[in-house]
């Protein structure tokens, strides 16, 4: 690469510890103008930490950073911005109640001016927006924007400050496949303009779609840097995980009797469009039904409905053939519903409580765990030890505080709590979000075991690869409506992407025999 474009960024020997965890271990990287570098690695490999050090959110314990040939002072986002580094965080750093223009212009003027020059700011924003094809509405409050628009606003925020190096942290995690394609198009325009881009990802297809160079991180170490064209998926996956991985392979099973039936279920939202709109859905035993969709299209309401947290405003919910009139969470558990909640930290587990306490949280009233209103701690601990053993939860013991467990082990704990009792229906909301590949394949195999044992699985996921690998049938949620069930082998990722964006006319290609209801197709 001698004599190539100018080196714009040089990281040398970066190390960072969080307590006992070595998050970054002696990492060195270079980035050239016009280059797209993909930083690939599992969750917890240290990708985000490295970029947060670069942008000044964290201070490295060791190592130096040089941008455009000059050393970058550590620990100062302001210095990074001034050096021409812009960062688009995974969780957008936008204020919902302020307008797009406010969010972009804040901090760009001296604080002590008597008047903000909004006119000039607006002209500059619209100019950039046009030049790079990043469409935004300057005066809309950020809270009203779609995820794609928010991301464009974030990128414009960096460009507005003359960023020449753009860092994107998991930029596609929240986008539909088509939106992702649009993002990669934008990245090409930016690099044609001489910008350098680093994007963090754990998805292989994106690396091949958008990057020139790929750097693989594993457990805090940089294990390899390759030109993207000279490598392949299998090799990268092995570098990322440290061993070879096999995709899940569900055995073909014929569906049994229905366990969950929704008929014309509507859940109002209190204002505007209902959260769920006349939804029909049936899940049979020995069947995984996948719900795809961009988050915020009714998946949360559906999960809450099946958990018993909310009730339908109209329509009928039946479990194992009997209509649920006044479901509440405890009732749903008694009826054989196992729940893997979307956010294991806030809705799944109580971090400050012990592992055994969390394990009996759904059935502490059972005579096996309490008698005359007094907990049988011995029995509960013994039960916890069994579950820990069976579900391979890595923890010091039943008395360990739950928040000290890793994400993967927390998820195993939840699996243990819900699957140990042979449920009839498993509601799995984003069951592998934020887990590393090892834990992901464990969760998948457990869900498939439960399917083989006779449970029906309702799998809500934003990861299309996961849905297509596990589900027997797929449906797409859009604006509170669900498409008819589509057999997993008759629909492609790009068709799902179109359905997720509301283009329901493709249903005619997938299911020629269905009659589309008027108004469904956007």
């Amino acid at each position: 690469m001698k004599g190539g474009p100018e080196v714009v960024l040089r990281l040398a020997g970066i190390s960072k510890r969080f307590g006992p965890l070595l998050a970054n271990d002696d990492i060195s990287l270079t980035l050239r103008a016009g280059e797209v570098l993909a930083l690939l690695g599992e969750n917890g490999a240290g990708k985000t930490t490295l970029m947060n050090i670069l942008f000044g959110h964290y201070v490295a314990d060791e190592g130096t950073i040089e941008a455009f040939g000059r050393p970058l002072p550590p620990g100062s986002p302001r210095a990074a911005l001034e050096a021409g580094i812009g960062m688009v965080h995974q969780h957008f750093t936008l204020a919902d109640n302020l307008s797009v223009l406010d969010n972009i212009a804040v901090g760009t003027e001296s604080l002590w001016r008597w008047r903000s020059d909004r006119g000039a700011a607006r002209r500059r924003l619209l100019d950039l927006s046009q030049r790079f094809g990043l469409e935004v509405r300057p005066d809309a409050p950020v809270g009203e924007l779609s995820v794609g628009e928010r991301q464009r606003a974030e990128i414009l925020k960096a460009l507005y400050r003359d960023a020449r190096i753009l860092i994107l942290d998991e930029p596609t995690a929240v986008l539909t496949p088509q939106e992702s394609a649009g993002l990669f198009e934008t990245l090409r325009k930016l690099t044609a303009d001489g910008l350098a881009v680093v994007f963090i990802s754990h998805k292989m297809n994106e690396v091949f779609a958008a990057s020139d160079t790929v750097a693989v991180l594993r457990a805090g170490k940089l294990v390899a840097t390759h030109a993207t064209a000279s490598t392949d998926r299998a090799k990268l996956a092995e570098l990322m995980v440290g061993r070879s991985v096999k995709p899940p392979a569900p055995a073909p099973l014929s569906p049994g009797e229905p366990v969950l039936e929704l008929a014309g279920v509507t859940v109002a939202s209190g204002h505007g469009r209902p959260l769920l709109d006349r939804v029909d859905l049936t899940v049979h035993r020995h069947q995984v039904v996948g719900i795809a969709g961009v988050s915020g299209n009714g998946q949360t309401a559906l999960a809450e409905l099946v958990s018993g947290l909310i009730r339908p405003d109209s329509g009928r919910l039946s479990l194992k053939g009997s209509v649920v009139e006044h479901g509440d969470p405890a009732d749903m558990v008694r009826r054989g519903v196992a729940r893997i909640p979307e956010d294991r930290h806030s809705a799944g587990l109580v971090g400050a409580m012990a592992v055994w306490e969390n394990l009996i949280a759904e059935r502490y009233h059972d005579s096996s765990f309490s008698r005359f209103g007094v907990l049988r701690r011995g029995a509960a601990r013994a039960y916890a030890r069994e579950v820990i053993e069976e579900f391979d939860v890595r923890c010091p013991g039943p008395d360990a505080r739950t928040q000290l467990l890793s994400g993967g082990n927390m998820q195993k704990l939840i699996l243990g709590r819900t699957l140990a009792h042979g449920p009839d229906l498993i509601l799995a909301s984003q069951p592998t979000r934020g887990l590393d590949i090892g834990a992901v394949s464990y969760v998948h195999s457990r869900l498939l075991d439960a399917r083989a044992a006779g449970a029906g699985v309702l799998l809500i996921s934003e990861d299309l690869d996961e849905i297509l690998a596990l589900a027997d049938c797929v449906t797409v949620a859009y604006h509170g409506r669900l498409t008819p069930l589509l057999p997993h082998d008759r629909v492609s990722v790009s068709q799902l992407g179109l359905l997720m964006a509301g283009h329901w006319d493709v249903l005619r290609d997938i299911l020629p025999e269905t009659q589309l209801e008027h108004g469904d197709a956007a």
Partner: protein
Amino acid sequence: MDFLSTILDILLSAAFWTAVLRIATPYVLGTLGELVCERAGVLNLGIEGIMTLGAMAGWMAVYQGADLWTGVLAAAACGALLGLLHAALTVPLGLSQHVTGIGVTLLGTSLSYFVYRLVLPQASTPPTVEPFQPLALPGALAQTPLTYLAFLLVAVVAYVLYRTPVGLAVRMVGENPAAAEAQGLNVTAIRIGAVVAGSALMALAGAFLTLSAFNAFFFNMVNGRGWICIALVVFASWRPGKALLGALLFAVFDALQLRLQQASGGVLPYQLFLMMPYLLSILALVLVARRASYPRALMIPYRKGER
């Protein structure tokens, strides 16, 4: 119909509206001060103590021979100091804003009484000073300069919050401090600055009581006005213009109940009338504030680089 005509008579008198503007003044100042703090993401329950200290310090400076405007400045400076204490504990140290605020209120009130007694150990009837006089203007416009200042400050705070870079920075740190930091702003400094400025405004509300509305410092003279301001901020959805409206509305209820008390001639217990402004405020709050979009980072301490 007798009752309605009584109310109508009251509402049509200039003296009533003079009283409304006077009564509203401390609420306007206190609400503005609290609003500035909360817009930056810091709840300041020290308001009651800061108002008391402002009332005492302003009065004491004038009693010791300073002129009235120096007294006002002294009050603002003392308020700013207590605000700095609140900010130092809640912003860089990230302590609970509730607990710290209550502590600041207890400190502010007790310190005021303590200093007052230290200087005037013997006084049985509170000594008086010559307060601000109403300007020689007709009707309800005959107000003291501090009232005019308060109404002017509504426009100033609105302008600063919505039209200047520093106002945008304050709103940003109250909505999403991580985003503000990613834009190169110093979250800690901006939050401290907003709390100090807001507390100075609260102290002006106190100084109005001793240097304009009355001419002496009494124990318990702030009498819960600070707490009303906290509710008014919610009523106003954190907007200066609506804060003015809320303060005026409350003052109308208050002035009305005083006059109804006199008009009723002791038929009804006076406590019923005293309750009225508070009841109506709660009602207004329920009607207006249920959909208030509060600053998202309100009461959440910001710690840089936390995972």
